[in-house]
């Protein structure tokens, strides 16, 4: 299993744990007195789960298991993969911080955190498709 896949899958497992912890906290009764900013994190929970866990796990497994391009360049330009990993996680973490901040302080500069988070995650998806597209092919037969 290549190093990039190991990073994707380990990060995905961490996001799954964090997403489920957040779901647990969001499900606590009001009497517990959960901080207000946590109560604003329902969309964050969905994205931790679907981007951090599901999509990141898929990225890692595709990078590992899809047919290689050639013996010389089995998985394409690995730098694209690392850039994708960094952008996806930076974008998602910015969202985790920016979403409650923006909800609590609307019409302030915090809104730009969400715009940057959106751009980083979008770039990550584009880079991943550029990296994986040539590997959607028949089995490599050594040509």
């Amino acid at each position: 299993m290549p190093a990039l896949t190991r990073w994707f899958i380990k990060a995905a497992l961490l996001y799954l744990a964090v997403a489920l912890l957040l779901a647990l906290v969001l499900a606590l009764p009001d009497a517990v007195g959960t901080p207000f900013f946590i109560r604003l994190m329902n969309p964050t929970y969905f994205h931790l789960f679907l981007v951090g866990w599901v999509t990141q796990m898929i990225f890692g497994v595709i990078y590992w298991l899809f047919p290689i391009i050639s013996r010389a360049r089995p998985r394409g330009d690995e730098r694209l993969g690392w850039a994708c990993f960094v952008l996806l996680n930076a974008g998602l973490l910015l969202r985790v911080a920016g979403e409650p901040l923006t909800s609590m302080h609307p019409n302030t500069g915090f809104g730009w955190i969400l715009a940057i988070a959106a751009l980083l995650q979008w770039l990550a998806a584009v880079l991943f498709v550029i990296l994986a597209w040539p590997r959607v092919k028949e089995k490599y037969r050594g040509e």
Partner: protein
Amino acid sequence: MPRLSRWMIRTAFVYLILGFTVGALLLTHKGLNLHPALWGWLPTHIELLLMGWIVQLTMGVAFWILPRYWAKPRRPKEGYARIAFALLNLGIWCVIAGTTFRAGAGVVTVGRGLELAAVLFFAGHNWRRIVSREGRG
């Protein structure tokens, strides 16, 4: 990787980009108030990524990787899987038309029906490929 898997997986990649594009606009709007009409694209964002990306990618990989028969055709009833591919994508666009583009609740119902039919056709293709090494189902 067979041709149908290549089609399904590449289509899933296209939906990934489309879904992330809509999602990026929605998230930016949340921070910077771009245009209130953007919230109408939330169902499209969800549909593109759940059905277009995750479900379709899963189907493409399953068609490729589930056990094949020793004798030809090695992936029997392949036509069922092709029909599933067509129905799923038709269903996705019906749901998008019915929600974001307000083509009517009936269109959403038709879309969901097409997606259900796609899954049934796909299961019809794959059911007998879900076996142990000894061929036990």
